[in-house]
């Protein structure tokens, strides 16, 4: 199949990739762009470990063909979070609350948290749980993850005065 070339803004920086359009976005990110933070837990859209953000929306990089991501699209992966205030607040809260254990689900989990907080400044526990129901964690029982997101939301709201 013919390869196509796409120019994306990945974690705030222009990146170019050339690939067969049906290749999984996950593989293009990990193998071509060297962004190994995004994980493959199931490869069929069930665990959420590969969650990344494309144009503001959380998507599963294992289900999305890279060719579906259009030119000039903005992609945020776990590696890009520390460049944003919301991302840094989330990282700090995850660390403090003990939200990461083995850490393998965390890249997808924390990207989902980021997508949530960018859309909802004051999520309640119900919304936090609902918005993360597609991110499976086998270690934590989710308690500390929910706590971390609540803490991050409060701090972020405090910072922005919203």
């Amino acid at each position: 199949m013919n390869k196509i070339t796409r120019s994306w803004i990945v974690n705030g920086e222009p990146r170019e990739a050339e690939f067969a359009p049906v290749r999984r976005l996950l593989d293009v990110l990990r193998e071509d762009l060297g962004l190994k933070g995004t994980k493959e837990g199931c490869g069929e859209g069930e665990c959420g470990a590969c969650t990344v953000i494309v144009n503001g929306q959380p998507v599963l990089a294992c289900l999305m063909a890279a060719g579906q991501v259009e030119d000039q699209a903005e992609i945020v992966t776990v590696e890009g979070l520390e460049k944003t205030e919301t991302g840094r607040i989330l990282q700090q809260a995850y660390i403090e609350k003990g939200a990461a254990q083995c850490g393998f689900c965390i890249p997808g989990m924390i990207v989902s948290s980021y997508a949530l907080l960018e859309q909802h400044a004051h999520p309640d526990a119900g919304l936090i749980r609902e918005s993360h129901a597609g991110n499976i964690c086998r270690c934590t029982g989710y308690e500390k993850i929910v706590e971390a997101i609540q803490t991050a939301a409060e701090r972020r709201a405090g910072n922005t005065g919203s």
Partner: protein
Amino acid sequence: MSTKAKASKRIPRVGQGVARLDADEKVRGLAEYADDLQVPDAWYGYIVRSPVSHGRLRALTLDPDYDWSRIVVVTPDDIPGENIVDMMGRDMPFIAHDEIQYRGEPIALVAAPTRKQAREAAAHVRADIEELPPLLTLGEMIDRYKRDPSELHELCAQTIRKGDAERALEEAELVVEGEYRAGHQEQLYIEPQGMVAVPEKDGSVFIHGSMQCPYFINPELCVTLDLPPEKIRVKQSAVGGAFGGKEEFPTLLAGYCALLALKAKRPVKIIYDRHQDILYSTKRHPVWSRYRTGLDKDGTIRALCVEYVLDGGAYTTLSPVVMYRGILHAAMGYRCDHVWVDGYVFRTNTFPSGAFRGFGAPQAVWGLESHVDDLAKACGMTPHEFRLRNALREGDVTPTGGVLRHSVGSPAVLTQTVERSGFVEKLSRCSHGRVSDGKWYGIGMSFFAHGAGFTGDGEARFKAKVALDLEPGEDGWPVVLVRASSTEMGQGTFTILPQVAADGLCIDLNRVRNPYPDTKYVPNSGPTVASRTAMVVGSTVYGAAQKMKKQLEEYVTREFTGGQAVQLVDGQFLTADEKVAMTFEEAATHHFQHRGPLRVYDQFRLPDYLQWDQKNFVGDAYPSYSWGCNVAEVEVDPRTLEVNVLKVTGVYDIGKVLNPVLAKGQLEGGLVQALGYAVMEKIEIKDGLFDASRMQTYVIPTTLDIPEFDLDFVEFPYEFAVPGAKGVGEIPMNGLGPAIANAVEQATGVRMRELPITPETLFAAMTRGASGPLLRTGTA
């Protein structure tokens, strides 16, 4: 050199909820798991598997029409050493060569430049197999066991005999019987199994990947590859969850990779996809247990007779030790002079069962704690009254005749959980299937122990070794490196061991690191299993840290203070009059310049009074026990029979809590796995294979399935292993299943005897009606 110490009052690191030392790399996506390792020129391995469950392999042929020029194939003929996986039985080949014992058993290995090519090539290996009749399920196994156990292939067996239980049973006023079963459970770590083998120029092999036990792999590969131990180097990558699933299984994966890599003369990696991982890796042993208990009407337990039977799958692997832990917990927790336990593991023609958090104990506690509710009912007592009356206390004797000498969190965990949960008042509100509108409410409890460390005299014989290295760090400042084979798989090893080392040395935690274990550098502190790391390895690290502290103090005394003794306090060497002689960093740097880096070792020891007879299972079955109690509250929808677990209350004695944040995380995570085991996670054998192979069909709890938790610790430190931890990793898995089943009985009036409890099984039990305990009046 003589400023007065400003703050010699020290804040210990142990007991503080310090943030995980590996949290930063994990939240930034920088931790390198097996599939993230850069391995130039690696090929991909794939396993050719038997399509039949039982048979005789007559011939293996390569499709002559397929292009094999860029493919490496390994068959048993390519194995340089013995084609055997040692573990506990020496009955499992790395690659089947004659008799095939389960569907999916490896019959050849292939490697190719890409994953796709490897998979494709595997499909062109043809096996000619004469089929034999298989035994496939726990149900068939138990039918045969009841009819005539000699029809079964016994993988191992063990008994516990205390007193004369048969006679005491005859003399008891009441006899209560019950049978309980539970199926497989999949670990479902989110990172699938992954391993890399790199053949080195000197003929050695480097194994790097996702594992719990680096030193399990080394001796096995010596046998298979016919290499001396120094030619096999094993290193742990970041591990994305394990729960026992990466205890013994990675040894096989390492073997497959190494055999392919040696033949291909290039690195070979195998990363399972989720389907392969669920279909072809170990699960929790399915269990069937039968209890016959003799009681007096006042609630005294006269005799406990237990049969505890596990489905081992096709080969022995670790089944003996899983069964040992099972029988040691199957009657544990209550005063009783006459205890007989018979443990068996039988073969079925299915994937070998293996380690999973709790290691036989959750299967045992499931039966015991369901049965104890029946016992309470039989003598007209409430669940908590009966348990409180009979619970073991300090000074009491266990089923194997061991005396609980100290650090016994019973009955404290029991009384505190009952009080905290409001059990007594809520028990009176249970529905018993009698409310016609709304939901049925029920509350149930369980009480349990978990032996910390290897079973029997395992720790006394093994004598875990650790080292501490003091060397210049990457930033130029001195660092202390914890050198142990204990792995980080999410549970917090790389944080608690540095906490303990920092306290033992009396230095700041930020000067201590725990690198990934690499057999080139670390002594054997044992496998990361059996709730042993905090207690056994932790106290050995503490011992090593104290030795290093003493050596540094002597060094400073000799080199700097003219013989005036100093003490290392809070990172500073203080003289007797509390003057600062120098800092830890200065002394360490001086040591590097003049003497080089410093390494100290220590080894785990146990008090001599611990005695264990491995043949007869008499004595101290464990160095110490953690204790726990769970109360579960459930709501059952009378129309759909869905069981909704509303709240879980738990109090645990895990000894000294090294890090309360991490320890709570262990409780919450373990309880959620136990919740899955109790009401969600179902995987059965269909045509010899597991009937689920993805997360959509093997369903585990999500954020929306979590009950309210109210959890706490009560500390009874283990004084012979400073700083006094026992174990927290496994005990959360032990008791929630029966607590939920007991709550379901209070809600519906139906006693469930099989896990998981699903609307379907509940419907079947309610329709059957025969749910009460089998109760007969004794002869006395």
